[in-house]
């Protein structure tokens, strides 16, 4: 039941968006953060065969079935997290980046992230003055069960709350900031460890950026109101 083929016809030069009919799983192995259970991962592969040609492209990704919720607790003002409906006590570590000359390697990521898991942490917070971390970083967080809090590139010190006060309206090019943010979301969004996108460090991004991020990061209504419907194809603009 975990193999499905759909026929799609694409005109010359066209780019379209296609959604498969949902695949049903009964009691799949869930993905859990470090200390709460196994980090079960499934390999999802998508391929496209073209008539008169053969396989034209393929893509694959390790995917974990998990539901992460978080909300501000009215009593404490802190953010509470739940994973698969279970409340989780967050034991997190700050992360800036592996190396100041960006000599980033899978091996270094694996070592650093396994170290965090061995320290019994279950979240890593990627600070807004550092990087949007790379897929290899997220891969090992998927494997070792470290939830990731990923900040965008705004910090209080540099954007409006530092000494001297500077850049109160953030970067000069807001469209460029949002283009980078959207592309980064597309790069990282399928990783089960990705738990929370955060506008910046100790600072709210400028209102237009913040509103756009909030809007873009809402889950598509298709998934919110899913009623076990069938195939669903729509043209992308």
């Amino acid at each position: 039941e975990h193999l499905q083929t759909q026929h799609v016809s694409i005109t010359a030069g066209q780019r379209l968006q296609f959604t498969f009919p949902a695949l049903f799983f009964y009691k799949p192995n869930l993905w859990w953060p470090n200390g709460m259970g196994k980090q079960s991962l499934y390999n999802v592969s998508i391929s496209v065969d073209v008539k008169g040609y053969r396989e034209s492209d393929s893509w694959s990704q390790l995917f974990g079935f998990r539901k992460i919720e978080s909300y501000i607790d009215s009593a404490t003002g802190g953010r509470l997290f739940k994973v698969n409906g279970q409340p989780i006590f967050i034991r997190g570590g700050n992360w800036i980046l592996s190396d100041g000359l960006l000599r980033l390697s899978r091996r270094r990521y694996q070592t650093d992230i396994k170290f965090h898991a061995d320290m019994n942490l279950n979240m890593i917070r990627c600070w807004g003055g550092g990087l949007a971390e790379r897929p290899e970083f997220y891969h090992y967080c998927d494997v070792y069960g470290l939830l990731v809090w990923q900040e965008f590139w705004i910090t209080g010190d540099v954007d409006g709350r530092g000494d001297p006060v500077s850049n109160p309206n953030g970067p000069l090019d807001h469209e460029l900031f949002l283009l980078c943010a959207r592309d980064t979301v597309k790069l990282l969004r399928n990783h089960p460890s990705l738990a929370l996108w955060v506008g910046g460090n100790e600072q709210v991004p400028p209102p237009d950026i913040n509103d756009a991020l909030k809007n873009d990061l809402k889950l598509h209504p298709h998934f919110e109101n899913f009623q076990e419907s069938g195939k669903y194809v729509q043209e992308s603009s």
Partner: protein
Amino acid sequence: MAKIGKVLLDSGWLAARSTEVDLTGIQLTTTHAPSGPDSPWMEASVPGTVLGTLVKNKVVPDPFYGLENEAIIDIADSGREHYTFWFFTTFECKLSGNQHLDLNFRAVNYSAEVYVNGHQKLLPAGMFRRHCLDVTDILSPNGHNLLAVLVHPPDHPGRIPPRGGQGGDHEIGKDVATQYVEGWDWIAPIRDRNTGIWDEVSIYATGPVKIVDPHLVATFYDGYKRVYLHATTELENRSAWVAECNLNIQVTSELEGGIFMV
């Protein structure tokens, strides 16, 4: 015919300071390709930064030891051109009919000009964005391709005040780039502001139809017993005719002992 999929370009790169190279990108990728690490060219680390390559070649001391960072000229004093570098490599690729090839940069800091076999393409500013160049039509007939990239530092590298401070003079915040590079309470300023091809470079061959940025979402019911996996993807038909496609999705999990369930 090229094999479908990704090939990383992570070896055999050379680098040179732009002010020490009198050639254009067109000349570098046609008639005057560098032949090896002969001055001003040196072996380069890609992915990596300009400073990473300079440290690797011992052109500057390693900034992580002692006060060595003080011995490296800061971009504010040297000017942006001092850390504007050429990166050069070659790659083999021969396509058959109806195949397409993309040249992908997963991240560059901060902007760049790309030359392939004498053709120029621009990588716009922004440290956190992917760049995908369709190079199908500019590949070399003999399969041996020359690639040169001129990487420019952030537009606002800033100047470090005498007393340092978190984020230096905060000029870097005008760009969409990492901000720690002007120094913070836990790190000295990074002299090149992390300029470079800092994430993977690859070539990616496909047939006429390409899969773009699939999105996977799970929805849960009945206490996580009933689960649906929703998969959405963009598809691009780069051929000149209608493509009749079969789109397949398969989910496998590795059970104990390496037995796969389909």
